[in-house]
């Protein structure tokens, strides 16, 4: 068979493989049950060669899955054993260290056979709503309390689904239908990727992927190294501090540009936390790598070769290299702050490229609703788990304001509140921008948002708060001011914490204000037209316009008069 291919043919094949994994991811979105996957896009999908090297990955909502998934398939090959890999198999795990960082991510791998020969693998990962244990939250003291652990194993053996495994899973989780549905969706999406890959191999008369793999990896490696070589070859230290659970956590990182690689060394960062916000290295690595890649080599697709030059090290059992059995359920909180620490260092190597600090971690919460217990509940009251993803403001960029209520570094979407309210007896009373929360600057930080959540008549609930920046707002860069910090309070005035499971009695609501991004540059250099525009739109109040940007009382009155008349600014 023809295995010699022209340069043009390889160009077409690379293009095709990226299309294959995008389609694989689309299939997952369309068949998944958890809102986290189907509405928010918290998933990823990729294709691998027989060695487990990632060749292409779909661009989905989660940079956090990027590196983690890139490493995962090699673990599967080792654990299953090559001799046990057969056509029709589907493998599964939620191992935080060999998967993507916590028990709530299910990773599934399917070997791809062509003419009875193993030619590669498809893998995909999705964040599921519940895996049993204490529920999604930071309250556990060890990974054993965080839910059901599924070691790397066969979900389907030569096409035969392991019914015992399904029973065990069903018996251990709060939303068994959703979870089993999601597992099937993951298997389906690999299957769809596989079929398309085989179509391509038939069309180009390929027996194996060696030639195209080499072409993809060589070109990606060379392009990435060129970018790194063009940077100033030096090192710098950066750090950032977040609230943590009970005590603040500091991330310290030394970023060194070393010819053909960039090394990020997290020595000096805080040690493990008692609660489940510790981060396995694989997940911290994903975000450090994402931060650098989006800054210097954004258009190079993710694969084994384009990711390899970004090396990450951290001392064992530091907060960014938590080892088994540390609790890790909310590892995303630390992970999402890794870019802010990396950028603090990188700004000293290449000034004027990276943004100021932003809200950082997603402002997620989960509500566990149940019939009220303090009085008779109506008959139709029910139990339900509802997870929502929300975003604060992103940090101001050197030339652009930060983005209002938009996720960074994560890329997931929020859920429509009309969809959320169909998922359970929850009521979202408010979800809108939070004026004055973006840090002042020549470019302004993105605005955070207000949210208010309650339950339908007859229900009470626990809210699992997964917020940060309560005590440590986003820090401004080069004279820019800090963003606003997170606040959370109960409608009856009871104090609440930014993290942890907290009870909300019947009839009460939780009132939250999510953080804004920080400003960049001296606010006095901000264009007066932009200040007026921000005032007109209510992004900033008249007080802020006067105090932070020195807008005159006359200008303020003019803007307010124009707005009352529906003026366009």
């Amino acid at each position: 068979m023809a295995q010699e291919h022209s340069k043009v043919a390889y160009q077409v094949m690379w293009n095709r493989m990226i299309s294959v994994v995008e389609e694989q991811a689309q299939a997952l979105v369309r068949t998944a049950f958890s809102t986290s996957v189907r509405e928010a896009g918290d998933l990823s999908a990729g294709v691998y060669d027989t060695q487990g090297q990632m060749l292409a990955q779909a661009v989905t909502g989660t940079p956090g899955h990027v590196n983690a998934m890139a490493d995962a398939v090699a673990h599967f090959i080792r654990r299953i054993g090559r001799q046990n890999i057969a056509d029709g198999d589907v493998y599964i795990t939620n191992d935080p260290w060999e998967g993507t960082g916590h028990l709530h991510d299910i990773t599934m791998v399917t070997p791809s056979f062509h003419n009875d020969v193993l030619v590669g693998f498809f893998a995909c990962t999705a964040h599921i709503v519940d895996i049993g244990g204490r529920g999604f939250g930071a309250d556990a003291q060890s990974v054993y309390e965080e839910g059901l652990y599924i070691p790397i194993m066969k979900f389907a053996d030569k096409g035969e689904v392991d019914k015992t495994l399904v029973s065990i899973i069903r018996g251990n989780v709060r939303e068994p239908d959703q979870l089993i549905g999601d597992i099937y969706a993951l298997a389906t999406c690999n299957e769809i990727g596989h079929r398309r890959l085989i179509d391509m191999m038939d069309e180009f008369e390929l027996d194996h992927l060696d030639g195209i793999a080499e072409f993809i990896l060589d070109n990606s490696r060379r392009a990435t190294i060129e970018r790194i070589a063009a940077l100033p070859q030096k090192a710098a230290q950066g750090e950032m501090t977040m609230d943590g659970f009970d005590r603040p956590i500091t991330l310290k990182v030394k970023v060194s540009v070393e010819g053909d690689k960039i090394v990020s060394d997290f020595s000096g960062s805080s040690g493990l936390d008692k609660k489940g916000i510790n981060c396995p290295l694989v997940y911290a690595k994903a975000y450090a790598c994402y931060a650098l890649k989006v800054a210097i080599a954004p258009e190079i697709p993710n694969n084994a070769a384009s990711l390899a030059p970004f090396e990450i090290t951290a001392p064992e059992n530091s907060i960014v290299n938590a080892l088994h059995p540390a609790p890790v359920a909310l590892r995303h909180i630390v992970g999402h702050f890794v870019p802010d620490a990396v950028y603090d260092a990188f700004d000293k190597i290449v000034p004027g490229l990276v943004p100021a600090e932003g809200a950082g971690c997603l402002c997620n919460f989960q509500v566990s609703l149940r019939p009220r217990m303090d009085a008779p509940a109506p008959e139709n009251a029910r139990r339900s788990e509802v997870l929502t993803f929300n975003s604060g403001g992103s940090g101001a960029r050197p030339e652009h304001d930060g983005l209002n209520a938009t996720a960074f570094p994560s890329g997931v979407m929020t859920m429509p509140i009309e969809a959320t309210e169909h998922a359970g007896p929850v009521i979202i009373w408010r979800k809108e921008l939070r004026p004055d929360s973006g840090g002042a600057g020549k470019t302004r930080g993105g605005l955070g948002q207000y949210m208010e959540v309650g339950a339908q008549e007859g229900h009470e609930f626990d809210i699992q708060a997964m917020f940060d920046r309560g005590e440590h707002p986003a820090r401004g860069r080069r004279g820019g001011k800090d963003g606003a910090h997170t606040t959370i309070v109960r409608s009856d005035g009871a104090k609440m914490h930014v993290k942890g499971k907290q009870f909300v009695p019947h009839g009460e609501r939780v009132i939250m204000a999510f953080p804004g991004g920080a400003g960049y540059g001296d606010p006095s250099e901000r264009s007066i037209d932009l200040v007026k525009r921000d005032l007109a739109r209510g992004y900033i109040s008249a007080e802020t316009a006067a105090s932070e940007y020195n807008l005159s009382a006359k200008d303020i009155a003019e803007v307010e008069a124009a707005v009352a008349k529906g003026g366009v600014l």
Partner: protein
Amino acid sequence: MKTFSTRLGVDIGGTFTDVVLERGGESFSTKVLTTYIAPENAIIDGMQQVCAKAGIKPAEIEQIIHGTTLATNALIERRGAKTALITTEGFRDVIEMRTESRFEQYDLNLNLPDPLLPRHMRYTVPGRVDANGDILVELNRADVEAVVDKVAKGNYESVAVGLIHSYLNPAHEQLVREVLAEKLPDVSVSISSEVSPQMREYERFNTVVANAYIKPLMASYLGRLEDRLKDEGVACRIFLMHSGGGIISIQNAADFPVRLVESGPAGGAVFAAHIAARYGLDKVLSFDMGGTTAKICLIKNQTPKTSRVFEVARTYRFKKGSGMPISIPVIDMVEIGAGGGSLAHVDAMHQIRVGPESAGSEPGPACYGRGGERPGVTDADLVLGKLDPENFAGGSIKLHPDASKNALTKVVGSPLDMDAVEAAFGVAEVVDENMANAARVHAVENGEDLSEYTMIAFGGAAPLHAGRLCEKLGVERLLVPPGAGVGSAIGFLRAPFSFEANRSVYMTLSDFDGDRIKSLLTDLKSEATGFVRTCDEVSPILSEFKVYMRYTGQGWEIPIELTEEQAMNPDVDTFEARFIEDYTKLFGRPVEGMDIEITVWSVNATTPPEKVERMDETSGADTAKATGQRPLFDAASAKYLDAQIVNRFDMATGQRAAGPVAVIEDETTIIVPASRDAIRQPDGCIDVVVKG
């Protein structure tokens, strides 16, 4: 439908306004430049031209069907009315916060498109409906009046009303409209429960805002058009093509102008569907490739596939998520930035990239010789022998192959160590692969296998690329119809009167309520039929029933078509069986033990499609006469072959030309690869079939 013998189809496009007059069996067409300031002028001009050609007076025209990009353009260019939004307290920023995500994750300097209305033009009222449609918080008239008084001070021309869960219970939106009508009788009002009664607040609010934003503009344009046509002596009614592929009255169009978005491309799909009917083809892929973009649409059983939501005005490389979502019934098309003018470059990975940036007509690709230095797809086509440099656009533009070669060598060849020919091959393959990928993904998303499809190609650049696309997709047959240059306007004349009414109402199969379903579908049917009746008083009206179903807990529904019998005598087992059947087809296997739910109900009322005579096809036993030969690069064998040149208008019915062949005509060239032959069918279509 009553048959009218003299009908006019008018399509206002970005560059040209196409006018087609059909009278008896004859057709007269013209293209005039679109007149942006007063688009009706081009219509009058074009109408006079075709009337003169046909030797009739405008008064003899019995029906006018019109489609236009004006609505789309007003949204893209932000040229709408001064508009306010009234929404639910606590949700003022829904249209600005979008999905809270970045549509391009690998761009630190990404900016999101501004919402149509800035924040200070968005007002809120109390009152709240819950997810069951029950009222959680009452909305008092006094509260509404207070807000309307504030709105009044803003001197708005148009107001959109979008409240949470209004698709389940429109009472509060109706109250706001009532107060607006009382206090601001001259202001145009749109409410989301009428414009787009579907779940998901961002899409629904954005749709009602878009409707309100273009409503005064479109109402005024349609009014002027009616007057001008009357002045010209036109006495017949005027109808509008809508995005769903049917026609509606001018009054409906003025009330719901957002339904006119993408009506031109919808006409193209209807055109292709009509040809499909003529050939009795049940599975057709329409492929329309112009200068900047390519559009691909699936047509099953001679009906273009429809969808409930699409995105308009993409601002960032045609990227998904960079535009604004509009949820209305629409013909489902994929559009990608691939056209004759799309420019090529080499990226950091040494990969050839083509588009979405386009050379446009000034300076155009390098071969135009107007100073364009970057190679476009047309340059690659020229070097590969697909175009004749002396006979491009009927000889009106002379092409410069040397300029193409230089540009290709400089931009693509040098960095990749390729000569101009290999670079041209690379560019053509990459753009064809991009289009093939878009078609594949679209097919798989719909559970379809393209190898069973026939392609129908139109638009200036499509015939140059369609043959290779068929090879890549495993499509065995390609039809290139005549008159493809004014395909959309012809399509308007083939479209039925139709209106789709739909509503989001949740029902699980475990709570199946047949009586409620029957009454819901009956209501939708009478609503949709009512709209169609205003256009056509006599024809029978058919109703097509569709429900959107999914497993409870999933986020994406799949459309399930029901027969009238199934819809009017709802039975839980039938609904379940129909869902399992279609789900399995799409995704391989059903999920056991899960409840199933219905989320959206839809009834499309339509007049019966025009009867199309099945044509007697020829197998092409005679040989077409070639006018010459030229070298033509054959992508499948990756080398030049000697190709015949055949003039399309010299080809008689039943003649066959063996590939490789270039079938030339004034507007374009049909490239037939070595793997295929071209046959001239009786209706003038060039039928490109696999050899043997």
